[in-house]
Every structure is written in C-alpha cells, then in structure tokens.
C-alpha cells in the first residue's frame, strides 16, 4: 500500500469527523498567510480592479461617478460589487434597500445579535415568504421600519410559474421580448401583486452563444429586495446604448457578468446574466442582442396586476420525461429496501418501518391540526394548499384530492456512547436526532402538471421543541423508541417513496 492510498482513504472518512475537525479549525483560527490569504489577495485584487477600471476609462479617480456606476452602486466588499435592481441612488427604493442590506450584513456578521436561530415564523412572515427575504422578527421589523421611513408600500402576494406569456397575463403586459431565440415556454418567473416581476430566461444562440438571463422589473413606490453583482476582479466597461426599439439603456459589461439598466417612469428594469462555466467574457454581440430584444419602454410603464388570472389555470407538463428520469436516478442511487428496515450509518440509528397507513381525515389516525408544521402544504390537482387550508379545521377532513400518510417507525440508537459531535442537521443537543432527515418523495404528472416534491414530515407524534419548524427525537444510546410521522400528499399518486439519506422504501399501493 502506498501513502497515496492511505491519504485518499483518510479523505473518505465520515462526515462527523470532518465536521468535528472543521468546527475546531473555525473556532481556533491561526493568523498565518494560509488562513488569511483570501482577504489579503482580495484587497490586492480590488485595488487592481479599480486601477484597471480607471486605466480603461483613461480618466482620474472620479471617473466612476461620471460614468454612472455610482448611480447604481448599492455597496461593495472585497469580492463583489453590488448593483441596484430598485432604482437610481437618489430614489427612495434604492435607499431603503441599501439600508436594509447594511443592516442584514451587520446582523449576520454579529451572530444575529444573539437572537435565537432558527425562529418560529409568525403569520406575517409566512404570508410574505417568497416575497421578502426575512426570517427573523428583527429582520421583519427592520423591513417594516424602512418601508415606513421611505414611504414605500409592501407587496402582499406572489405567484411563481413558468411560461413568459403567463407572466404577461398576470401583469397585464404586452409581450416584452421580441426574439425567436428566446425560449418563452421555459422561462421561470415570479410575479408580484404590485406588477413587479423577476423572470429567468434561456436565450439560445444570442450573439453566437447560449446564455441564461434574469430580467427584473421593480415598480416604483414599493419596497423590493435583490441585487445584481460583479466580481471585483472583473474589468467593467459601461456605455449608453440605444436599443433596436429606440430606448436608451445603460450597459455594464464585465468578464463574468453583464447588467443592462433602464430607469422608466413607473418601474426600474434590469436585465443581467452571470457566467458560470468559462472564463471568456460575454460577447458584445450577445449583450446588445439581448438589449435589442427587450421592450424596456413597455416594462418601464405602469400595468395592472391580477395574479388570480393565472393562479388556478391548468398547467402543461414541462420536460416531463427528462424530469421523471432525473428523479428516477435520484431514487435509484439509494439502496432499495425489501423489508423496510435499515441502519443509518451516519448517526448509528436503526430504523424499522412498522406500518404505512393512508387516510383522508386527521382524526382517523389520531392526529390533531396543532401537531402539524405551519409550513406544511398539500398539492392536489395543480393547486398548492398551505397550512391550514389543506384541511377543514372543524372536522379534520382533508381537501378533496389530498390524503394523509402516517408512517409508524421504530428507531433504535445503536451507539454505545453519547451522540454529541455528529450534529445532524439542526441537532440541538446530546442524543437528539432530527426527523427532517426522513422524507417523502412523489413525482408524477397530475392534471397536466409535473410534480416532483421531496418533503419533510408535516407532523410528528412526539414532542416538538421548536413548534412549526423541525422536530427532534431524543434517544439514549441503546434505547428504542416508536413514534409516527405524518405527510400530506396528493391522493392520486401511486409512485411514492419514503426515504432517508441511506435508503428508500417504495410505498405500498392504495387499497
């Protein structure tokens, strides 16, 4: 045996040992070039970038302001330059988000100011999930404070889907992209009730290459989040450009990113893309081809949003075969169980599935609504019902098209010593094990829509230390416990799989 083989084997040791080591390394940093090299290097790179920019522009230190980067610059650090998707720097929308970003960075850098993490999501946070990126009370309060300070309204609804035409329908827009290379059906979008949107589009052979582009339109007068960025290493060129439709936009063009901006009368519009795979810059032809294809002027004007027009529409399958194949590969990569019994090599837990029962009423299996996670959801006939809308709160009867799956488990902690260092996801203490590692997966075409969901248990029959989030089971070494997990799932599907990281168990057919 060679040292190479042994070194390779040491590289394959269990995650618990790697994590133990890296946790110790983080807590005990050594101030040497090896540890701090990134900061040193980045500082040097930042200086080089600025010098490069100035050299490129051929002017003095104030050139950036003259040429407009300052007008959209939210912030920068050693690694990134963050540019606005909200508006120009003197706008209320820009200032509000810039202040929120600064607060967020400081909050995270200072260990959440000692706030408990994770936190239970209150009703406002649940309603605004997917609209605003806030997951603690303090972040929520900051967002509300800033929206009031800058007299900005808040969005209250969001709809996500694919198909650019549906985005237009929801927001009362004419087609805003005129280019046959733009794959309209594949475009994924998120539309808000104020008329704002984010859309991710694939562009085939734009200026000689394929690329993915994001377009955001943020309606003025509303609080919005999100930014575009450049690496500090990038050489950035910037110029004003008149599109094929006669609209003047500003283009920022770097090695790895581009950013096209239009400040309309009612909305601020940005098209951007990031290069992930090769080191060559986007071609100028690709960037201007995209600028030419987008109707910035239309997007900069007001429009009437009605998300209800598209929310409950029938959906068509998208790349169903490929998605089903991908999902199948995921399942096949795990050991298929014949008897429903396996050992979790990582945590040293032995699982046995004692029974899997189907029902349509919470009470039939002894569950109560209060036991369910508040982020639980059920998907039936293309509609996603969130807690508690998936059941009648009085009778416990599930909405038509949904069913309750109750999985009875017996789990033995086969370890001979306390589990302290393993720190399974969200482990909060010695010999606590998270149920978030036991999943239900279902994939099928239902009512014309492709569904591929992997979900954690929606309810746990034991105690729940953090209600509404993640449940834990406390099992002493050598101890065996039995408990149940419940999942809300579509009634029509047969090909469901119950699985953990180590193994999976296909569910029996409905009788």
């Amino acid at each position: 045996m060679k040292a190479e083989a042994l070194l390779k084997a040491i590289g394959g040791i269990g995650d618990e040992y790697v994590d133990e080591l890296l946790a110790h390394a983080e807590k005990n940093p050594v101030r040497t070039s090896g540890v701090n090299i990134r900061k040193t290097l980045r500082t040097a790179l930042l200086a080089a970038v600025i010098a490069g920019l100035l050299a490129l522009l051929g002017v003095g230190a104030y050139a950036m302001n003259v040429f407009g980067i300052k007008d959209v610059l939210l912030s920068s650090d050693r690694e990134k330059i963050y540019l606005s998707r909200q508006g120009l720097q003197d706008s209320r929308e820009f200032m509000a988000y810039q202040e929120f970003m600064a607060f967020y960075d400081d909050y995270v850098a200072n260990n959440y100011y000692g706030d408990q993490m994770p936190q239970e999501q209150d009703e406002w946070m649940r309603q605004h999930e997917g609209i605003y990126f806030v997951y603690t009370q303090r972040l929520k309060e900051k967002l509300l404070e800033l929206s009031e300070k800058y007299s900005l309204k808040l969005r209250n609804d969001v709809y996500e889907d694919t198909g650019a035409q549906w985005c237009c329908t929801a927001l009362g827009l004419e087609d805003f992209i005129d280019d046959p290379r733009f794959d309209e059906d594949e475009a994924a979008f998120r539309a808000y009730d104020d008329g704002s949107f984010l859309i991710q589009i694939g562009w085939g052979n734009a200026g000689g290459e394929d690329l993915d582009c994001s377009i955001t339109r943020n309606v003025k007068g509303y609080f919005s989040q999100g930014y575009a960025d450049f690496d500090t290493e990038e050489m950035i060129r910037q110029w004003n450009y008149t599109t094929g439709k006669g609209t003047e936009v500003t283009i920022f063009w770097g090695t790895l990113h581009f950013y096209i901006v239009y400040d309309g009368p009612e909305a601020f519009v940005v098209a951007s893309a990031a290069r992930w795979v090769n080191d060559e810059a986007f071609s100028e032809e690709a960037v201007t081809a995209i600028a030419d294809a987008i109707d910035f002027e239309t997007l900069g004007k007001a429009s009437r949003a009605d998300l209800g027009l598209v929310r409950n529409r029938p959906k068509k399958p998208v790349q169903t075969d490929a998605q089903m194949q991908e999902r199948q590969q995921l399942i096949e990569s795990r050991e298929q169980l014949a008897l429903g019994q396996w050992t979790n090599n990582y945590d040293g837990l032995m699982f046995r599935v004692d029974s899997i029962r189907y029902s349509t009423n919470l009470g039939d299996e002894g569950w109560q609504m209060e036991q369910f996670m508040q982020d639980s959801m059920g998907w039936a006939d293309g509609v996603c019902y969130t807690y508690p809308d998936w059941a009648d709160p009085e009778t416990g009867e599930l909405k038509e098209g949904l069913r309750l799956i109750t999985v009875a488990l017996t789990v033995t902690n086969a370890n001979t010593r306390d589990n302290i260092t393993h720190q399974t996801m969200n482990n909060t203490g010695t010999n606590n094990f998270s149920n978030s590692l036991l999943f239900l997966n279902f994939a099928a075409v239902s009512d014309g829509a492709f569904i591929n969901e992997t979900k954690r248990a929606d309810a746990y029959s034991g105690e729940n230390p953090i209600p509404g989030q993640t449940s834990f089971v406390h099992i002493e070494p050598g101890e065996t416990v039995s408990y149940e997990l419940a999942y809300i799932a579509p009634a029509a599907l047969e090909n469901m799989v119950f699985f953990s990281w180590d193994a999976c168990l296909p569910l029996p057919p409905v009788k």
Partner: protein
Amino acid sequence: MEDERIIALYWRRDERAIDETDRKYGALCSAIAYGILESHEDTEECVSDTYMAAWNSLPPQRPRLLRAYLGRITRNLSLNRLRNGKAGKRGGGELALIYEELENCIAAENGPEKHLEEKELILAVNAFLAGLPQEERLMFLYRYWLAQPVAEIGLRMGCKPGRVNSALYRSRVRLRAYLEKEGLL
C-alpha cells in the same frame, strides 16, 4: 445564515447561495486549499471550483453537514490539482513531508505489498479514528486531512509543536498496529 437556508437557496437555484456560502465558509475553504496548494492563485481557483461543484451538485445532493461537504470538495479538488499538475507552484513542502510520514507508517516489512479496496481502507481508518481520544484525533486530522504544518496545529490546539509531533507519532504507530491487526498490512 443557517446551513439549511443556504442549501435551500441552492435548491431554488438562487445565486445568493454562492454569496452566502462564500460569506460563511469562504475563509475555511481558502485555508484548506492553501494548506495543500501553498499558492494564492491556485487557492482562489480551487475555492471557485468548490462553489461551482456545490452549485452543480445541490440538488440532487442535500448534505446534512454543509461545512463538511464543502471542506471535502475543497480538499479533493486541491489534491487533484496537485496530482494533475495543474497547480502553478506545487505546494510540495508540507505535503511531501506528510507523504513521507505516511509512507514510513505503512511500509511493508515482509512480503509483497497488499492492494486493498478503497472502501475497506476507509472503513478501517474510520474505525481507527473512533478509537482515538478527541485531541489526538484532531491533531491527526489537522495533519493528514488538512495538511497543516505541525507548528500551526500546535497553535490551534494550544500546545507546543513537540507535543503535536509526539501525538502524531503515537497515532501513526497505533494506525500501523491497527491496520496490521485487521490484516491490511
């Protein structure tokens, strides 16, 4: 940001996942890569490659321990870079010493060398680590997983380099004895 939320960003294909990963684990990944490559430029490239690998593998992967997951990717990429001769300036010094230490630890005294299945060896190393006291295990892994110099390990562990050297020597002797006992040497 908590790991679960970072992983959720990857699963939603949200580019903030990369930023948050870098914010939380960038320094750690850089330290791992630099310990092996000893080159600023190679370290930067290796850390970028780590993020790319994470972006491409999450989903379908959903690691339980993001720190360990990223650390493992960085280590493997760094070693691959060395093996494939892509590293601009071979970070040879420390790694050459480490190879020598391990070579001495497992050199066959009699008979031909055994060729083992990698899985078999990993299982044996895992079992060996489980039997080590935590302090010795950390020193062993600082040296042979992170490729850290002995002096740095001493600083991290709050002891003198001589003590680290002694502990590493003991661990190597134990490892050899364990592998022999298991019939792997």
